[in-house]
Every structure is written in C-alpha cells, then in structure tokens.
C-alpha cells in the first residue's frame, strides 16, 4: 500500500514580522529540502517546514523499531507521511479478527504517535478509557510497551 502525494496547502499564517521568534518559514515555497514541503506551525510551537518522509514502507529503511511503517498523513501536527515503529499498519496485519492501533510512547502526546502495534490477548487495556476507570492513571492512556511487548495503561513520564 502506498501513500498518495497530496497534501493540504492552506495558508500557514506565519507572522510577517521579521523579528518574530521561532519562524523558520513563512510560505510553502520556502520548504524545498524534501518531498511535498509545507510550512506549518502555530503561535506556541513556531513555524517550520514539514515533508513527506516516505510513501511506502520500504522508504523507511531503518532498523527493527525506528522505521518500519510508513504512516500516511501520520505527522502529529500536520498531514505529512512519517516513518514510525511498529508491527502492523492495518488490522489485517494482525491476523483474523485482529486489530492494529497507533500508540503514544512513554512521553505521551509530547512526542506524538510512536508506532502502530497489534493488540493481543495478553494486553492489559484496549483503549484510553480502560486506564481512567480506577482513578490511578488520571492522565493515563493505553499504550504499547516495547519493554514487555504488550499494551498497558501508562502515565505520561518523560525521563528526568
């Protein structure tokens, strides 16, 4: 399965003030260092170029975890294609009646979707609602845990 080459091209809305901080681009035409460049951003994050990193899985020629899956429009703040970790990209990859889901990493939504993984019978949760029911994970979410190879409830915890 291949991702298409289409991307939205709405006005990035970058400030015109030349002294505005964290503005690396102001127009899509500024983004010429990769495929399908688009200037995107907001007042909090600043503005920067985004590109399609891949169109098919084989473009993600990395190792076992960092780059297996080409996620079409999988960018966390834009519609760019990105290489992600994982062991599936569609439900059919997980066997009959199986299903494949995106997962945050241990830093939660700070670092966006970390990969796509199959659910299995050894999982301790199915979705985020399972992780808020008992109140022990007030900001909890259901995530795939590479250290144990299954989905578990998680609190957001960045190292430090």
């Amino acid at each position, binding site marked *: 399965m291949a991702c298409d080459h289409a991307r939205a091209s709405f006005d990035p809305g970058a400030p015109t003030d030349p002294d505005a901080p964290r503005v690396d681009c102001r127009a899509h035409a500024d983004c010429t260092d990769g495929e399908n460049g688009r200037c995107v951003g907001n007042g909090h*994050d*600043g503005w920067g170029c985004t590109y399609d990193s891949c169109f098919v899985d084989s473009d993600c020629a990395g190792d*076992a975890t960092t780059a297996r899956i080409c996620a079409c429009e999988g960018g966390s703040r834009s519609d760019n294609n*990105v290489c992600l970790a994982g062991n599936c990209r569609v439900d059919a990859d997980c066997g009959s009646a199986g299903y494949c889901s995106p997962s945050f990493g241990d830093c939660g939504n700070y670092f966006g979707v970390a990969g796509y993984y199959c659910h299995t019978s050894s999982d301790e949760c199915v979705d985020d609602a399972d992780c808020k029911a008992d109140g022990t994970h007030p900001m909890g979410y259901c995530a795939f845990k590479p*250290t*144990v190879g299954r989905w578990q409830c*998680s609190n*957001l915890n960045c190292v430090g």
Partner: protein
Amino acid sequence: MNLARALSCLGLLLCACSAPIDLETTSDVDRGRRYDESEEFRREALIASLENPSNGYSRLRRERYVPDQWQALPIWNPRIRVVSEDDIAGAKSASDFASLEIESVPWEEGPLLELGRRAFYEYPVQLMPFTAVALTDVDAPEHYGLWRGEGRLGGLVWTALPGDAVSLSVTCSTCHATLREGQLLTGKNNAQLDIGSMASDFRGDAANRVWGPGRLDVTNDESDNPAAIPDLRPVRYQQQLQRAATVKNDLIALAIRTETLIITSLGETVRPPRKLTFALALFLWRLPAVPARLPDESSKAGAHSFEQHCASCHRPPSYSGPPVALELIGTDPLVGASSERGTGAYRVPSLRGVGDRRPLFASGSVRDLDELLDPKRTAAGHPFGLDLGSLQRADLLHFLETL
C-alpha cells in the same frame, strides 16, 4: 563463608528487621545493601524524602513503591550495544549485544563505583527511537547536541526488546555528560542537547522544538514548563533533588529517586536491579569536585559581598540551603508551581562548582553568573546582588568561581 563474614551478614539481617540504622557508624555501602534487601527501609526512606506528599510525584510513589506494585515488576537488565560513530548513516550490527554484569559485582565500594560508571553510560533509562534522526549523517550528532567521546556517541545505546525488536535508548550520560577539549565531563549537563528538535524532526513537525537546547519538559501537568538539565557534579551538596525541591536529598533518597525515575520512564513495566540503582547513586555521590579558580585578593574581597547578599540562603559549607518560596525568589514559577512536582518553592542550589554552571534558574533563562549579577538582566527574579557596584560585582564573581 568465614565467621566474620557470617556475623556481618547476620548483623545486616537483624538490622533489616528491626533497629533503626545508625547513620554515624554505618558505611554507605552497608546502607546500600540495606536499601537493596529491606522493603521497610526503602519505604521509610522514600516517605522521609518527599518534600510535598500531595503532589503528583509523591502520590504516585507513595501508592506504588510497595511490594505488590513496582517492587513486583520484572527486573530489567536488557542486552544493549553502545552506539558509536560507526552507527552514523550505517547499518547496525545485530550481534555483540550484552547485558551489564551485575550479579557478580560484590557489595564493595570500588566494584560498585565501576558498576555505577558503566550504568551511567550504558543502562537504558528511556526508549527514544526518534533519536535515530541524530544518526542520519556525519553532521547530525553535532546538530542535535550529542557528544562524542571514549568510543561512544551521545550516551545512546541500542536496546534489545521482546519480539526481536531493537530500540535506541538514552542513558544518564545523554543528558548529564559533556565533551570539552577532548575530555568527557561526567555529570556536567549537556546544554547543547536538543531532544525537542530530535522528536520534532523525526516526526516532521515543530511541536517540541520550542523547548530549545538543554531543556526538557518532564512533568505530566499539562503545563508547558521545560526545565534546564541540571549539572549533577555537585549533587552530594544539594539539600534537595530536582529544581522544585521535590525530594530531600541523601544517598539513599538519590538511589530511590533514580530507581523510581527509571521505573516511570520505562512505563512502569519493569524495574532496574536495585544494586544497579544504588551503584549509580554512589557513583554520582562520589563524582569529583568541579575544578575551581584559586582564591586571590579579589575573591577574598568578594567573600564579604557573599556574606551580605548570598549566604543567608546559600549556606557554607554546602552552599545550599532550605527551599525558598516562589514568591520570594520571584523567578519564573512554572516549574516550582507544577501540580506534578511542585512544592511551592525552589530548591537553593549548591554553589559548589557554580563558576562552571550554565544556564542558571530552573527554566534556564539566565546564561551564566555574569548575566545573573547584571543589573540590566531581563529575566525576572533572584534580585540579590543586583545593586552592587561594578568592582564589588567583579569581586563577588571571582569568589563564586572559587567554590
């Protein structure tokens, strides 16, 4: 086992079951062994170390640092391989992965320090696959602030996972080591490390780039409050651990802080061996002093200004002190007010080695001591010493550089 060793073991066993430990006569290694062996000792040390029992950090630990929760997690000592220059733009080798040797390390200071050093550079504390962007070409490591030295690259390690998966991971040294003039400074904060940009560039967006180099938001409080990576070299002089004074410091508190940090950073799925976390804490506790300027007439004159303007909070000989309320210090309160780690105060950092420390303040908003004492500084707060004349200010700076 000889008689003396047997009696020693028996003593430890009895100690673990009943009597409070005597801090004056018990060695650090003996305390470490008790931390490893006694659930009761660990629990008491944890509770005693929490500055604000009601913040998120404390509540989570009070609830889960118990036998049937975090203590019951599987012990994790994965096979790893150190990332080196050979990994840049190249294929990794699937062979030569190995676990740290821990079981055979005796409970003796020298071997524990060596284990602590290896763990500092090689034990994975969080999986960060997105650091792959720093290995894409020869310029990438420097672009993202990864150091190179002693055959290592940025303290990254390949980590073997279930299902034949492998992930890039960070170690303590990724954030807390720096290369200077060809020498690797263990414990020194990596002020160039740009984790936010690595994450953003891996995904192709701009979301985390706002943190900037040397800073990381580690709290799940829905507030955008990245903190500057601290210099760990003076850690034994700090009265509190963490910018927000979250943990009262001592060697065992540091071991528990390290152990629970690794547990949470690995998603509460596994726990590190306690011998390893104690060895890490002991290694940090014994880090050599930061080289300081030799005293001269100017610094001796500066000592007088220090007495007047600084010493009520930064108390010798540690030059640390009790936490100071946020409203009193007046700096950016976001880190200290965090519902996750906040205490309503900031710790008073030890000034040992402060001449080689930058940036300053929890938010990292002040470049160095020069800017701290500059009356025209724009970053708010910590108004102490700003009204000095230029000569007095120079003398005080020289004094601070001798600490």
